[in-house]
């Protein structure tokens, strides 16, 4: 336990198997197997799972900041949306003259009677620049906001409320047409990404495989962080911040570091989400979306990483079924799920599974300390 390994041998085996499945087998089964083949994976399934993998990356980011550092962000949807918008700007420019008005400008700008791109759209025709924005915009916003919030020692519910207000304010801003981000319709009707038709099954399968690679990379990176001394300081901040300070650590830089990293992960997830889902609009910044992210993490089990992935998968799988079967009841079901987890499963699903597997290590503290050994 002292020199915690990145992963146990068995866990490496699982990771490699999952990687093979997600990066190679599923996309191949979608593209190369004929539709009537029994092992064919439908394009619908690829689209759904691709979207859910983006959410899993967001959940990992949430687990770092909430599960490990004890800071509940209710604004992570904002960072996700900003990454999405940055990628969306590039995709909008790649539509070229295939829009309804056959103009060089996106349809919504033609509609506003704009004659040219506003200055902040400059260079977005270059993919590399958009990719830079995906990382820099959420990262810079998180850094500046975090610096002032953590320096002022804003904590607990106050911090959560401020992040919630931040995403809400951003949503109102993005709703405005004159912001130049498409108002409440946002960006949609994308045609091409890096020269490939976005509707092509091969393009979709490739995006899926890339998302899977990013998810696995994010998991390993997060796992490295939480098993390093950096991660031990984060959990120490969560459990006894004053002792951390009197031991000579300045919590500001630790919190700011993990907070900014977490925001960047969300931005990347958002950028992968947009071409796969085909739309980004301000509703991604709605307060409810950010709260949902926290629920995924709580359901799976905080402070375990693997719990975040499981939680995001389970809740979103359930959601896509519910919204087809009983769309009007989804919010009630989500609320009920959250209450049940809070009351009966403080360590989430992962905590429950571990308790079953090892009744001896059933104390919450022990379960949390073994975090991520899955």
């Amino acid at each position, binding site marked *: 336990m002292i020199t915690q390994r990145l992963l146990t041998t068995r866990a490496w085996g699982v990771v490699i198997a999952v990687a093979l499945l997600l990066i190679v087998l599923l996309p191949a089964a979608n593209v190369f197997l004929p539709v009537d083949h029994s092992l064919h994976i439908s394009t619908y399934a690829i689209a759904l799972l691709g979207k859910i993998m983006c959410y899993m990356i967001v959940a990992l980011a949430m687990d770092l900041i909430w599960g490990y550092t004890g800071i509940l962000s209710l604004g992570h949807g904002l960072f996700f949306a900003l990454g999405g918008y940055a990628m969306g700007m590039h995709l909008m420019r790649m539509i070229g003259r295939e829009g309804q008005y056959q103009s060089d400008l996106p349809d919504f700008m033609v509609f506003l009677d704009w004659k040219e791109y506003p200055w902040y759209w400059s260079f977005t025709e270059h993919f590399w620049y958009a990719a830079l924005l995906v990382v820099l915009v959420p990262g810079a916003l998180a850094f500046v906001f975090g610096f002032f919030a953590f320096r002022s020692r804003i904590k607990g519910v106050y911090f959560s409320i401020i992040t919630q207000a931040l995403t809400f304010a951003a949503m109102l801003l993005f709703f405005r047409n004159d912001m130049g981000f498409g108002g409440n319709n946002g960006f949609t009707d994308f045609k091409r990404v890096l020269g490939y038709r976005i509707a092509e099954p091969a393009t979709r399968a490739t995006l899926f495989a890339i998302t899977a690679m990013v998810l696995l990379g994010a998991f390993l990176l997060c796992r490295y962080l939480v098993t390093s001394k950096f991660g031990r300081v984060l959990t120490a901040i969560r459990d006894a911040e004053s002792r*951390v300070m009197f031991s000579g650590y*300045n919590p500001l830089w630790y919190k700011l570091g993990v907070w900014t990293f977490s925001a960047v992960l969300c931005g990347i997830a958002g950028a992968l989400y947009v071409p796969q889902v085909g739309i980004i609009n301000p509703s991604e910044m709605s307060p409810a979306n950010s709260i949902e992210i926290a629920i995924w993490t709580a359901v799976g089990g905080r402070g375990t990483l693997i719990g975040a992935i499981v939680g995001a998968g389970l809740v979103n799988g359930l959601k896509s079924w519910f919204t087809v079967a009983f769309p009007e009841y989804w919010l009630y079901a989500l609320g009920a799920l959250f209450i049940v987890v809070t009351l009966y499963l403080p360590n989430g699903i992962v905590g429950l599974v571990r308790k079953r597997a090892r009744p001896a290590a059933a104390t919450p503290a022990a379960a949390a300390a073994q975090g991520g050994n899955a």
Partner: protein
Amino acid sequence: MKPTEEFQQTDAATPQRDDRHSMLALLRAGRENMLAQQREQWDARPQFSRLVTSDDVDVTHGPILYLEDVSVSFDGFKALNKLSLTIDAGELRCVIGPNGAGKTTMMDVITGKTRPTSGRAFFGQTIDLTKLSEPQIAHAGIGRKFQKPTVFERHTAFENLELAMKTDKRARRSLTAKLSSSELERIEHCLETVALSAQRDKLAGLLSHGQKQWLEIAMLLMQEPKLLMLDEPVAGMTDEETARTAELLKGLAGKHSVIVVEHDMEFVSSIARQVTVLHEGSVLAEGTMDKIKNNERVIEVYLGR
């Protein structure tokens, strides 16, 4: 002098028996080396804080801590009222006083948790404590044990000491930090000193109350502070644990300056040389325990109750 050497040196002179006895013997042997080590203690060691630039605490005039007319008011209520106090380098000082006298507030001022409303607080001749943050003060060489034992409950005893250890504590260093073998040895040795070797890999939250107190003291030792402040270190300890703590603290004096806040008069008598009595935020009396015991004002407000 490397930090491990002082342990090894004393260890060589210590016949190993069970943990507890070896600890006491270690401390006794430690005291014999005290004077020789005292000089080395003040040698400039590498300082890793970017923020505290003075290489070391300037104790050329004797005292390591000066409090001068320090007042702290909370909404008009004066928790400290023109408190003045000096602590000499290497001294073991006990601070006593009834509940609410301002003992914890005094520690808060010294460690940067609370800013004084007025007055001055200096560490050595040069370091103005009222201008530094908590981590900067910790780097300057002040370690603190809280009234309520405060350890990292979801880390093992070993990890608690690892986190406390004096080293570069900047975030970016922590990403790649690895324990060297001498650091590892120091941690193991410190665990032995406080008789927690068997609990090495146990979560601190699962330790007994007394063990947590000891773990917190061990964390302070890992910080290698020049001034240690302990707020009610024997609260909730059994008589035997209290006696062991007294031995430990006596062994620390000389190598470190120590301030102990305590309620337990018996314990204070057993370790104290100089005692300061606080009352309503200022010093009521100061002197040896015998003098204090016979001071009429002290008897009136404290002992006689």
